[in-house]
């Protein structure tokens, strides 16, 4: 019997309309877990590096985390992977909710989609009954609207639906895939649209089996209580009405302007009232006691849900207030667009207009006010009308297409992907490395286990480390104890910290555990639910294979290194690993490049950021080294005769 896994993938070939249920190798879970790890293995094997993201051969993979469908609380984030037209690299995307667990109960670990349908279709999965169905009647329907229509059509309120909106249908590069009020961003909605797949509806009523169920349930019951009670877990931004952190420190407009004393008591009162006058409730994801999503019922809009910084992006890009975000989110979520990238694209276009690079004639009929302009451009972009057709390709590509100096205004992207609007003074070494070398594209998907800032006194730092259960190694406690000034930390410590931060995300995204109870949350308070010290036991009890801390650390590094090799094979090199030039005001190229070299060496990568054969073999990735050598990406090392 397979534990936690179903042992089957669903292979959908849209060009021919074929559906296959394929048994998988049980050994793979031990090496790659599920989710992103399992998907990376498939993308490496089945998508040759020269494949254009818009080719029918690009795969779109929905994968359940290894712990989906188990009693492990907060394991519910579904992973979506493919190759992105924006970066030409592996797209990494996640969404919370109920989809992954439902898919597992339907009897599948992954849905692997290739080819393209001739016209819009949707996929209906009801246990063993799987059908590709016509979706032309859903053309133009909003994301949650599509979910609602499909539940009615299928006469089943319990199906879980992931859908694209108009943006995905029109192959907008910032398009998201939405499920209830959760969004998968960063380059996957465009490919779902390109494959002409409007939605996936899934319903499952099968058992998920566990290796040591009673022991696991007992741990999970305690974990559930811990997560419910701990202020170190979940999204505190859902309830903390003091949002001075983002507004005083993040940049407004096209990631340009900081307004240091923006926040005030009077403003907080006004915004809190807007929120609670219109908030229906806070909702949670499958089997999680937290309630991180605020569901807003704004006049004239469909209900929408948001969490984290998603409540600020639109109004900060538009120099407006929270009511504007509420007004536009209900529209933007139905169109299915990434609420991090989209506002920056719009602000970028308006900056080009101000600079005279784009002309008034490029924006026929555009209202004069910021509010009206954002709505105008949102409509143009999701419909790919006029200037919207160019802007729909994201900031970097649009800047190239517009030319005439527009490239200068593309100042906040890394690897051609829009970054969070953060502009700071002094360089933070760990963040330099994470933004430069991270392949999950957004810093929120890379940072998170080690605190962002030191605590002011030694007593406070001692108190922090004394209850810090999450540290994988005692050295991190020493690093933190001796850390006084943000940028005054050894290079060795910086490398270790970056590796730990990354490792936790690679584990979460493969087990399906949410970053808000694990990888992302530790940096704020330290008291998280899942970490290197308790995950091995949980995985062992759930899966039946023996997992240890060392093995788990190695697994995280294996997945992370495989993702790197996938991207190396598609052209990723050292020259691409640069944070935005204005991310910090004070820069030191020599120091930064030295640090980058040290990090590459620490990771076992060569000076071009490519893993060496020795490193690959130590992670059981010898087959990757063979391939990289065959393609001439790695030099064949001459064997010294013994």
């Amino acid at each position, binding site marked *: 019997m397979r534990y936690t896994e179903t042992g089957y993938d669903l292979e959908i070939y849209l060009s021919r309309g074929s559906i296959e249920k394929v048994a998988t190798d049980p050994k793979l879970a031990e090496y790659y877990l599920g989710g992103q790890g399992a998907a990376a293995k498939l993308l490496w094997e089945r998508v040759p590096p020269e494949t254009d993201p818009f080719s029918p051969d690009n795969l779109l993979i929905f994968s359940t985390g290894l712990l989906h469908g188990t*009693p492990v609380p907060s394991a519910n984030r579904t992973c979506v992977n493919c190759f992105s037209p924006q970066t030409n690299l592996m797209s990494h995307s996640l969404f919370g909710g109920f989809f992954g667990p439902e898919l597992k109960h339907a009897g599948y670990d992954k849905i692997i989609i290739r080819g393209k349908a001739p016209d819009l279709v949707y996929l209906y999965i009801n246990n063993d009954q799987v059908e590709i169905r016509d979706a032309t009647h859903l053309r133009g329907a909003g994301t949650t609207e599509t979910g609602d229509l499909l539940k009615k059509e299928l006469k089943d*309120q319990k199906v879980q639906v992931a859908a694209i909106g108009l943006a995905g249908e029109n192959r907008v590069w910032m398009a998201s895939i939405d499920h209830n009020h959760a969004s998968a961003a960063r380059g996957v909605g465009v490919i779902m649209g390109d494959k002409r797949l409007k939605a996936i509806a899934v319903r499952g009523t099968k058992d998920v089996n566990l290796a040591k169920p009673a022991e696991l349930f007992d741990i999970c019951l305690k974990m559930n209580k811990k997560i419910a009670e701990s202020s170190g877990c979940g999204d505190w931004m859902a309830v903390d009405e003091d949002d001075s952190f983002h507004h005083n420190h993040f940049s407004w407009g096209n990631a340009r302007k900081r307004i240091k004393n923006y926040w005030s008591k009077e403003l907080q009162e006004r915004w809190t009232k807007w929120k609670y006058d219109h908030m229906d*409730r806070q*909702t949670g994801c499958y089997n999680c006691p937290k309630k991180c999503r605020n569901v807003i019922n704004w006049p004239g809009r469909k209900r929408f849900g948001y969490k984290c910084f998603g409540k600020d992006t639109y109004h900060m890009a538009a120099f407006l207030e929270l009511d504007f975000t509420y007004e536009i989110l209900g529209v933007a979520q139905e169109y299915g667009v990434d609420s991090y990238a989209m506002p920056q694209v719009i602000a970028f276009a308006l900056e080009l207009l101000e600079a005279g690079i784009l002309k008034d004639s490029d924006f026929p009929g555009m209202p004069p006010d910021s509010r009206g302009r954002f709505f105008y451009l949102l409509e143009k972009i999701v419909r790919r009308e006029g200037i919207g057709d160019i802007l729909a390709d994201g900031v970097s590509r649009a800047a190239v297409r517009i030319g005439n100096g527009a490239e200068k205004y593309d100042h906040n992207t890394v690897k051609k992907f829009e970054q969070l609007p953060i502009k700071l003074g002094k360089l933070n070494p760990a963040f330099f490395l994470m933004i430069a070398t991270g392949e999950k594209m957004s810093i929120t998907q890379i940072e998170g286990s080690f605190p962002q800032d030191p605590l002011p006194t030694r007593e406070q730092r001692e108190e922090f480390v004394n209850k810090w259960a999450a540290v994988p190694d005692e050295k991190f406690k020493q690093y933190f104890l001796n850390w006084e000034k943000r940028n005054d930390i050894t290079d060795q410590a910086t490398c270790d910290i970056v590796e730990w931060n990354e490792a936790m995300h690679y584990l979460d995204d493969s087990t399906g555990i949410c970053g808000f109870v694990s990888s992302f949350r530790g940096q704020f308070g330290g008291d998280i639910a899942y970490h290197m010290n308790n995950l091995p036991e949980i995985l062992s009890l759930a899966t039946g294979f023996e997992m240890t801390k060392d093995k788990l650390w190695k697994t995280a590094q294996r997945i992370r290194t495989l993702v790197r090799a996938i991207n190396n094979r598609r052209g990723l090199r050292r020259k691409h690993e640069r944070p935005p030039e204005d991310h910090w005001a004070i820069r030191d190229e020599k120091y930064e490049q030295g640090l980058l070299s040290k990090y590459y060496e620490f990771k076992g990568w060569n000076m071009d950021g490519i893993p060496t054969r020795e490193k690959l073999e130590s992670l059981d990735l010898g087959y990757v080294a063979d391939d990289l050598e065959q393609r001439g990406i790695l030099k064949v090392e001459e064997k010294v005769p013994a």
Partner: protein
Amino acid sequence: MNAGLPTKVIKEIRVDIDKCTGCRACEMACSAFHAIPRYSSINPSKARIRVVADELNDEYVPIRAGDYTPSECNGRHIYTIAGKQYSECSFCGASCPSRDYFIEPDSGLPLKCDMCETVPPLEEPMCVQVCGTDALTYVERQVERDPKEPPARGEVEIGLESLIKKYGAQAVLQKMAQLAKGLKS
């Protein structure tokens, strides 16, 4: 309460639908607790509690499996509560032919909540234990037993009654006489 009168314990699961986040941990835990062997598998569609959820209508109602009924209602009430419409079905715990709630998906047999009664007893039913927002709470109340109330019926009596309903008293009596003879010899 009068010390001399016999009492009984009423077990209640109270539901505050304003506090429900729709996470369905209750379904997960219920299915685990009732799996055989206990906790061996997870399957919310086998749970004896369901969260009736409609995100677009902001509707989240956990309902507990009640009795099996062979026929569906002829017409339903639609209730409007605080401006939102709820179907009567959203509050009904019956295992009935009009929906697939509380029907074991493999066998088609009806499911019914047993308040997790077990030896030794749980402190609280499993669904209540995992509810992180206190949308579900457990209350035990001691009440006086109504003297007119018939005594609680045992399992043998309930079982025999259903056999008689299905096969008729004559057939059951005959079979019992036959079996009793066989056991004596």
